[in-house]
């Protein structure tokens, strides 16, 4: 791949990246969240087109229009979210789209043999090819997907964070499968956040940062410290506003909290007038932590104490207790895109907009206008459909909802994801302002400079467990990354 560039709206996801992988090697791709790893491999696998640049496969130009074409030409990608049909058998999944058939009639015996051959190559000769995939444990499902790429004859196999949902024993078995493939002469692109894994199986590695390639080196040439330094880089930005905050009494106390899957142990205290940041990798359980506190996921163990209220509660109770949550997924969970700004903004507290259960559209529009002005939301008026606004303005509507409701505790999950720099700056100011007014803010973010710039304290989540919160002034990006990847 030569000079690959890709932009999404105003964001540059990839900037002139060169990348190559050879037969019989495991090439690791590392970088922070949002550094462009996933985008790069998606272009390679035909899931997204590149804006610029060329690709060459075995000396021939390679321009897949869709994932199927890429697979036929020998590039198979195993997605983080597994692309399997749970109701079909293992053999049917492995050979989906390229079944053995005579006039439409399946040759089940031959399909079983081919699936078995592919699985045997991966070190899973005993997997029952007739079992439905949904009955398999998650690790075996992953192997089924890799077998699919092997069975079609892919010479390049891409694994995008394959271990994020696996136990340690499963990871070992997956590695055996990956190494077996490599020894067969396949080229493997391996994306992972976990440096110990890369140390274990990669031959070479490439580091991406902010959409640019920083380095490609054989594994032995770099220590973990070098890699972390390459991933973080140095950049000082003056866009963060943090006034001196005066933390008051504790308002949210979480003690040994366990959720359905994650978090597995989280303890912290959040005070009025304080901004606590939660760092960690994607999938480390940060979102689940917020969901569990807010009552979207059930509390399995541990305690959530909110001022005078103790114990678990439903989201509607949380709103009543003065807690507001901002979802990381604005489009799916955060906003009703087809409703107006006013409807979205006032949704959590319609009661004050009219008497006896009625909602007065006039008062609703007035209330919304107040916040549109305060936050500088660029729009035609309170009646405009939220889906028509830019990402940054949509996010401001979502945050305005918390402020309109007058919450004391703001749970913010990736509050600046996918929005432009100007809006980011305004959102940082809003967070600062909220803290100055004595509100408490819990903020999850994948962007470290932002956490370091905005938060008073930062805690790091690693595989479901939340570390101790330390003052932001006493930590730095390298320390946080190290803790997040468990180095």
């Amino acid at each position, binding site marked *: 791949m030569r000079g690959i560039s890709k932009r999404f709206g105003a964001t540059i996801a990839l900037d002139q990246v060169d990348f190559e992988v050879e037969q019989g090697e495991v090439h690791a791709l590392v970088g922070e969240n949002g550094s462009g790893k996933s985008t790069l491999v998606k272009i390679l696998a035909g899931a997204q087109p590149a804006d610029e640049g060329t690709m060459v496969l075995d000396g021939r130009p390679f321009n897949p229009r869709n994932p199927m074409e890429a697979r036929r030409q020998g590039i198979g990608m195993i997605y983080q979210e597994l692309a399997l049909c*749970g109701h*079909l058998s293992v053999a*049917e999944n492995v050979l*989906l789209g*390229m079944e053995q058939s005579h006039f439409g*009639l399946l040759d089940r015996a031959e399909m079983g043999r081919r699936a078995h051959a592919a699985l045997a190559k991966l070190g899973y000769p005993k997997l029952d090819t007739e*079992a439905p995939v949904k009955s398999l444990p998650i690790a075996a499902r992953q192997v089924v997907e890799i077998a699919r790429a092997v069975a079609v004859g892919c010479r390049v196999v891409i694994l995008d964070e394959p271990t994020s949902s696996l136990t340690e024993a499963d990871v070992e078995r997956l590695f055996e499968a990956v190494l077996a493939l490599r020894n067969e002469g396949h080229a493997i692109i391996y994306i992972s956040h976990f440096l110990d894994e890369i140390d274990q199986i990669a031959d070479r590695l490439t580091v991406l940062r902010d959409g640019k390639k920083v380095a490609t080196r054989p594994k032995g040439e770099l220590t973990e410290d070098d890699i972390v330094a390459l991933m973080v880089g140095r950049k000082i930005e003056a866009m963060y506003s943090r006034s001196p905050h005066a933390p008051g009494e504790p308002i949210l106390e979480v003690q040994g909290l366990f959720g359905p899957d994650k978090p597995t142990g989280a303890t912290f205290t959040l005070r009025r007038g304080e901004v606590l940041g939660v760092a960690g990798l994607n999938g480390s359980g940060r979102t689940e932590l917020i969901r569990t506190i807010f009552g979207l996921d059930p509390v399995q163990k541990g305690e959530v104490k909110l001022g005078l209220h103790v114990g678990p509660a439903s989201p509607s109770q949380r709103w009543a207790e003065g807690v507001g949550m901002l979802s990381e997924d604005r489009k799916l969970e955060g906003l009703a895109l087809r409703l107006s700004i006013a409807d979205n903004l006032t949704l959590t507290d319609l009661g004050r907009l009219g008497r006896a259960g009625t909602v007065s559209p006039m008062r609703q529009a007035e209330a919304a206008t107040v916040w549109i002005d305060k936050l500088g939301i660029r729009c035609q008026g309170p009646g405009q459909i939220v889906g028509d606004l830019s990402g940054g303005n949509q996010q401001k509507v979502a945050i305005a909802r918390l402020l309109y409701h007058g919450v004391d505790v703001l749970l913010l999950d990736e509050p600046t994801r996918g929005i432009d720099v100007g809006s980011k700056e305004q959102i940082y100011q809003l967070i600062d302002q909220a803290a100055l007014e004595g509100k408490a803010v819990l903020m999850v973010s994948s962007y470290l400079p932002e956490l370091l710039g905005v938060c008073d304290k930062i805690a790091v989540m690693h595989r479901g467990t939340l570390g101790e919160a330390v003052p932001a002034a006493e930590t730095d990006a390298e320390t946080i990354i190290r803790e997040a990847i468990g180095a």
Partner: protein
Amino acid sequence: MRKRIPGSLANVIGLVIAWVVIFCLVSYFSPSFATSRNIELLARQTTIVSMAALGMTYIIISGGIDLSVGSVVALVTVVIAWMLKAGYHSTTALVVGIAAGTFCGIFNGLLVTRLKVGPFIVTLGTLLIVRGFAKGLAHEQKIDAPMTWLANLLEVLGPGDRWRLLPYGVWAMLVFSVVAAWVLRYTKFGRYVVAIGSNEQAARLCGVPVESVKLKVFALGGLFAGFAGLMQYSRLTVGDPTVAVGLELDVIAAVVIGGASLAGGEGSILGSLLGALIMTTIGAGGSQMGLPNWVQEIVTGSIIVISVALDRLRLKKV
């Protein structure tokens, strides 16, 4: 991995047990119920729903739905009667009638795959459109047609015909069922239907021709609705544009009782047939026991909800 009973088998066993319980219950209260003549009657009554349920099973497994079945059945009775009245040969009438049903299915399929409108909305629309055409063709009246063998497919067997055990129409339904079940399990097409219902994205990613399979599934739904229409004609011996209103709900209920999930990916032909049989037995048993119609409706509705709820519980445990 521990040895387990496949979910589909457990489902069928559960349905058989449910049917036996209902059958015994009715027989206990009304001893004359369990005669061979009555069982034959059950088979005849269940044929129309079962025939349509074959196609509906395919559609629901693929993640779709078809609300237009009842209207298609009515149209087919009208077309057959109209052809016969106009003096065409009975075989021609049969072929044209079935073709009309299939055409309706293809029309549904084209709307779903080309316009990208959800099948619920599309077939809600064609429910009205097709019913309208049926009424127009029949001038809003029943069409009387000369008697042919087409009207005898579900007749009560005379003493000389006992060797057949069941009327031709019932046999046809059983043969089609075997073929439909076999196609679903052992052909590429059948497996693609399940794959699309299970995970459409994954199927597309693997090069499954999703649109064309969906189109064929709806065409198949229309074909079987056509046969259901033929059976309906056979039972009425007239073409009636107002017949089979709400039939689609019986058919969907049969498929769902039979273990299909409206989310797609799950369901079986045998299950759907048993679902249809259970519904018919409740209906016939209810009238046998002298229960008023409104009680039967309450019972049938409850059975639908309970059977699906039990199924969900079973799946949770596994």
